[in-house]
């Protein structure tokens, strides 16, 4: 029941964001959207994901969108309604809905994802890694190599932003300063 209400809020908010012309209000709604998603993840017992969603989606990315807004205009330009993008979106949505029909029911213990390694992760985190949080055991130890890759991706993102937005400044300074 609570889930249905939260999903309803998400749906209403998504339509509101799509129709909104004021980008500042849209950015704020995006933050609330993330917060509602985080509540949904908490209800599904995925606290670690909820934590990340609340911190990144509602926190940092809202700030970054606001930072971007300060560089551009606050209002979206009025554009004529075009049919093709609308059709593409509807088709993609219908395909995704069709795809979910093959998925196992939510919480089904016989879902394929639970058959393979889950038992080993749940028991091994306790007996081999000796940490109570299975998510940490999987992320940091069983899948430490993947997490290393993710950390490198975040590093690469920061380096990319540095190069794109501020990388040439030093050269300009050197060119301007008398030698």
């Amino acid at each position, binding site marked *: 029941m609570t889930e249905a209400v939260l999903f309803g809020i998400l749906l209403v908010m998504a339509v509101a964001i799509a129709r909104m012309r004021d980008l500042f209000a849209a950015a704020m709604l995006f933050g609330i959207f993330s917060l509602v998603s985080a509540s949904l993840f908490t209800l599904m017992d995925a606290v670690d994901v909820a*934590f*990340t969603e609340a*911190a990144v989606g509602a926190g940092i990315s809202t700030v970054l969108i606001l930072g971007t807004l300060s560089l551009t205009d606050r209002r979206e330009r009025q554009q004529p309604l075009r049919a093709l993008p609308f059709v593409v979106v509807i088709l993609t949505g219908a395909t995704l809905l069709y795809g979910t029909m093959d998925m196992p029911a939510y919480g089904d213990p016989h879902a394929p994802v639970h058959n393979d390694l889950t038992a080993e992760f749940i028991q091994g985190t306790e007996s081999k890694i000796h940490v109570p949080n299975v998510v940490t055991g999987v992320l940091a130890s069983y899948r430490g190599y993947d997490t290393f890759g993710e950390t490198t991706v975040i*590093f690469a993102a920061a380096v990319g932003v540095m190069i794109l937005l*501020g990388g040439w*400044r030093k050269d300009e300074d050197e060119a301007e300063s008398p030698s």
Partner: protein
Amino acid sequence: MKKPMRMREMIILRVVSMGLIPPIFLFALYVQFHGDFGPGGGFQAGVIFAAGFVLYGIIFGLTAVKRVFPPRAVEVGAALGVLLYGGVGVASINLGGNFLDYNVLNSHSPAHGQHLGILLVELGVGITVTCAMTAIFYYFAGRHTSGPHR
């Protein structure tokens, strides 16, 4: 268009954020080092830590936050976290294990090796995420100010 009031001139925002920032950092440390026992870990802690700096930067200005957390330190830190993570992997190879095999980190007890490995690796993630998020904020927020912003 009327020039909006600067954030640092709004006394309520300033007082509230000054009260909020220390608990944010404390909570980030808790999330970082309590990740083995509860929800959270390096990534979440890093984002929360960066949020503290971002809040400080929004209220008191980019120049002020750059005095607290210099851009040079941000750049070095972003690389340092990845190096720490990779260094744990290299150390476990040198001690005779596989890459990122924490069992060998403590010769007496594999469990303690696992704890040490996870602690260091999560610390590396936390440092890199803090610095990467702060760096992205610095560069986005510093765009509209013309001239050298360092």
